């Protein structure tokens, strides 16, 4: 087993114990093994959230600057670097949301208000349905297929 650098104070007692202890090792599979890569990738998707939201804001700002600025913004999005980023961001965020929704039911209490929480499968199906519906309807609408 290869152990990463020990973090000397994890789970340290408030009073030092009476005998010497070996320092704790971090979880054996962290960061590259087990489920950790997925969790870390999930966290890293935060970058997509921040960057894409900023790019969206830039677009809104351009929109406020008039037609020429808006067209320039749109043209800019055709740059290969943007295209690569956006393919990655789209895939990343979709995976991100689906993971979030898959984990979501377990975070819900037994009762939500007076209602019993629906079975996990129902909740997940509902959330996945919501995501894909918004994606489909939003795309068709925004893309002009549903004017």
């Amino acid at each position, binding site marked *: 087993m290869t152990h990463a650098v020990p973090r000397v104070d994890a789970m340290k007692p408030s009073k030092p114990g009476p005998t010497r202890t070996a320092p704790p090792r971090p979880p054996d599979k962290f960061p590259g093994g087990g489920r950790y890569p997925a969790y870390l990738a999930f966290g890293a998707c*935060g970058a997509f959230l*921040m960057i894409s939201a900023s790019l969206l*804001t830039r677009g*809104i700002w351009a929109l406020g600057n008039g037609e020429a600025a*808006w067209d320039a913004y749109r043209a800019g999005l055709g740059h290969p670097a943007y295209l690569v980023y*956006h393919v990655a961001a789209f895939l990343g965020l979709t995976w991100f949301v689906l993971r979030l929704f898959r984990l979501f039911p377990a975070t819900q209490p037994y009762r939500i208000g007076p209602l019993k929480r629906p079975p996990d499968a129902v909740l997940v199906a509902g959330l996945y349905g919501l995501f894909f519906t918004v*994606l489909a309807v939003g795309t068709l609408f925004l893309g*002009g297929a549903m004017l």
Partner: protein
Amino acid sequence: MLKLEPVIWGLFSGGMMIGGILLPVYILVVALGGGFGVVDGQALGYDRVFALATNPIGSLVLVAAAALPLWGGAHHLRHLWIDFGGLKSDGLVGGLFYGAALVGSVYAVLAVLRLHG
């Protein structure tokens, strides 16, 4: 920062959900559809988009999609930093991420407000 955790977490979890749902639409249609030229130019033309964006509902959606994900992202990145041993610099790095989210949110709100003249 501590006393604000519930606020930030509220924004964060809202941000994850809303950002996660809305941003893919924007990316798919505007960034990719437009970028690859698949989506009809008319649909993303200035007039239509401006009309949509200044519609009250459209404006709200825009603010939500442009501001909230910043908090979700900032929160995730801050924790990622801690996961790799960055607790010592949490004040600084966390401050930077949340600061950026705050600035970005203000910017987003202004950008939308500006559309309304």
